[in-house]
Structure formats: C-alpha cells, structure tokens
C-alpha cells in the first residue's frame, strides 16, 4: 500500500504520476530533464534501455 495519500486537486495530465503529483512543479521539471535524457544525446535508445535494465537489477527495483 502506498505510504502517501493520493494527491488532491491535480490535473488529469499529471495524476497518472501518482504521489509525485504532490509536487507538480518539481514533477514537471523532472519530466523535462528525464525527457531530454531519453530523447536527445548521442547514446542510442537500445544502449540506454540496457543501462536502465542493469540499473534496475542492481537496485532491485523490479522494472
């Protein structure tokens, strides 16, 4: 069970991000950076995905 309540008074656009929507400005800034990491750069998408999977395995996040 989530340890924080679902945020109230958030727009549908960010409600899908769950508890992160408690801090909308932080969430938007995070998504901006995250989008750049995935969308741009010289590292191809396949390599990024492999790195993400390795990171998930090391941190046992279940991704």
């Amino acid at each position, binding site marked *: 069970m989530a*340890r*924080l*309540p679902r*945020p109230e008074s958030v727009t549908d656009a960010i409600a899908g991000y769950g*508890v*992160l929507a*408690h*801090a909308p*400005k*932080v969430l*938007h*800034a*995070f998504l*901006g*950076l995250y989008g*750049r*990491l995935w969308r*741009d*750069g010289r590292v191809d998408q396949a390599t990024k995905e492999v790195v993400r999977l390795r990171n998930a395995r090391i*941190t*046992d996040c279940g991704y």
Partner: protein
Amino acid sequence: MSWLAAAPALRTLGDALALTPDLLAGYRVLEQALAADPELDGALRARCRARVALLLGVPGNHYPSGSGADDVVLELVEQLVLDAHGVSDDLVARVRSVLSPRAIVTLAQAVVVWEGQYRLARCLDVAPEL
C-alpha cells in the same frame, strides 16, 4: 582533473554537463524547482544535502546543526541513500508527523538528484558544483 578529454580542462560537474547544454539546462531547472518548494524548509534542505554529501564522501561539506525534529527526516535521507528497500512504514509515518506529503515528495526527489550529482561528479573526477 577529469579523464574526460576537453579543452579547457573540466573542473566542475557544471563544466562537464555544459558539453550537453540541454541537459545542463534541465538539471538547473530541476534544481531550482526543488529549491523553490515552500513546503521544504531551506535550512532542513541544506542539512539533508550535507548528509547526502557526507554519506557519499564528498569532502568539505559543512554540516549545520538543527532541531531534534529534523532527526527523523535525516534518518529517512540516510536510509534512502544507503538502502531504499530499508525505508519502513514506521519511518515514513514518523516523517509524516513533521513533513507534508508534498514536502516528502520534494525531499525524496532532491535526495535522488543530489545523490546522482555527487556520484556523477565522482565518476567524472570533477567537483560536484553545477
């Protein structure tokens, strides 16, 4: 000196991220959003950042003293950095007695950003300043 080949030589994480200006800009926007959240006290935020730096062996970080009420927040910060799976229901409940859900979310995001910043700086052998 960083092992990243660049001229002039890279000294800070800001120098390194400037090799990808969009990334640096995104980092700064996120840092500003974290710093501007009014629900997370600035002094507490500074203590938490110093604790993250201390845990990751970043030299020269002043560790400002604070109130006892901050201790449970620092306990969460430590657990999040050392082993996130060790964050318990009890610990979160105690943090909720002193911080709002929004402040907890902002703090957790901030810890992740600081940790990444310090680890990346260590990896690139540059100072962590942006």
